[in-house]
């Protein structure tokens, strides 16, 4: 198997394929990632979302997208609509300014995470569907706000990279750590413990094709541990009830989206609804360290949980 490792947009990526990817295809992968970042990163002053934020202060603003970028926007916005409805508005794409208000206003690599902070939480625009619309290839933003697609953006990007490699024969894994998409690659996968990353809370025997997302509040913490990046749009403050979630789904975007939703009331219900039409399993850890998991997880062959009462035989 061939293995391509690289760093991009603050993440370590690994692409595993049966054979080495041709040079031209590798370049397309990198360009795809860079272009995506150039549109959607709120840390880039020259990005589309930053431009929309600046322009929407005074008046309604709009951006022209390429057909493929419009397709991404449509997929993300419709998924966000489902997430918002399910969580009573707690998840919103117009949440960038809430993250900035807590101090996460630049690339995480440039923050000083141990610096103590005392920030005032700023609620997001939770009723955002009127203020952020896509018409054809025009993305319109009519309220002053900053888009942040962190709830599912990385998952979508992993799907797009995966789709770019559709013609590559054999097994394939696009692994951005917390978001993974794969085919023809059944695997034993450790579910990383959020409080001690040398440990696993369990192991899942993943099917050959699909996606997995893992989300945890330890991933981005700043203000000497006081703040993390999974915030409740209604209050603008970091969630406290859950520490981590893990989801198996058919696409990386939906796995990522559900992994986020599970931190909020309504998340488990949304998972239940989705599992009527696709293969989904999930787990999450409460702030007291106890695990909750879906019936579908319990039914998985080869799933193990390192907790009392779980039969690992």
């Amino acid at each position, binding site marked *: 198997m061939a293995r391509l490792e690289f760093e991009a947009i603050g993440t370590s990526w690994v692409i595993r394929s049966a054979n080495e990817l041709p040079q031209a295809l590798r370049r397309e992968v990198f360009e795809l990632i860079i272009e995506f970042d150039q549109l959607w990163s709120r840390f880039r002053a020259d990005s589309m979302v930053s431009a929309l934020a600046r322009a929407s202060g005074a008046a309604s603003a709009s951006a022209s997208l390429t057909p493929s970028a419009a397709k991404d926007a449509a997929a993300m916005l419709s998924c966000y609509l489902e997430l918002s409805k399910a969580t009573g508005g707690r998840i919103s794409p117009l949440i960038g300014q809430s993250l900035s208000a807590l101090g996460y206003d630049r690339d995480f690599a440039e923050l000083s995470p141990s610096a103590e902070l005392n920030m005032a939480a700023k609620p997001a625009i939770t009723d955002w569907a009127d203020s952020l619309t896509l018409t054809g290839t025009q993305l319109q933003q009519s309220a002053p706000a900053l888009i942040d697609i962190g709830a599912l953006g990385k998952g979508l990007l992993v799907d797009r990279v995966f789709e770019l490699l559709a013609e590559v024969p054999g097994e394939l894994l696009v692994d951005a750590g917390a978001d993974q998409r794969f085919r023809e690659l059944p695997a034993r996968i450790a579910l990383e413990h959020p409080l001690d990353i040398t440990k696993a809370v369990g192991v899942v025997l993943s099917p050959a094709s699909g996606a997995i997302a893992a989300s945890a509040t330890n991933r*981005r913490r700043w203000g000497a541990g006081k703040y993390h990046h999974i915030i409740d749009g209604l209050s603008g403050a970091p969630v406290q009830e859950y520490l981590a979630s893990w989801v198996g789904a058919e696409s990386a975007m939906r796995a990522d989206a559900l992994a986020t939703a599970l931190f909020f009331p309504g998340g488990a219900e949304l998972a239940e609804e989705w599992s009527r039409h696709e293969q989904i399993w999930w787990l999450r850890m409460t702030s007291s360290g106890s695990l909750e998991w879906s019936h579908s997880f319990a039914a998985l062959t080869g799933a193990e949980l390192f907790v009392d009462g779980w039969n690992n035989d």
Partner: protein
Amino acid sequence: MTKTAKASSQKIKAIAGLVLLGGTVTLSACSTAAEEVPANTQSPQSSTSDSSNDSANNTQTSAYQDGSYTASGNYRTPGGIEQISVTVDLSDGVITAVSVTGEPQAPESVQYQGQFSSGISDAVVGQSIDELSVDRVAGSSLTSGGFNEAITEIKEQAQG
């Protein structure tokens, strides 16, 4: 723009010296654990590195020799590259304790590493080292690569 970033490099220090009937002892030259123990976390358990203290009556039933092993690796945090040191105690092929310590190289990372080394240690205790063999990890930390590679080195070292 194409960067093959290997997240870790390793160096191994065997803290335990073992004597097997008819076997050989491997001791590392720079044997003091003090080099790697930072101020803010627990120090690794170690058995003595002086071979004369180890009983020659040790018989091994598993492929992995009992003892305390340390491997270190580098990993990437938001604050930069940090060093992590994993110490594993093996008894009869079973991990009886795991300790993870780090050497902060940037002041911002001290808090971050503190969260890793404390924490629930029961999850792994009692698992045979072979059960940590998974194809990959689903997790949002940036350090998994360093740990897994350290464990691979420990396995190789422990197989003597």
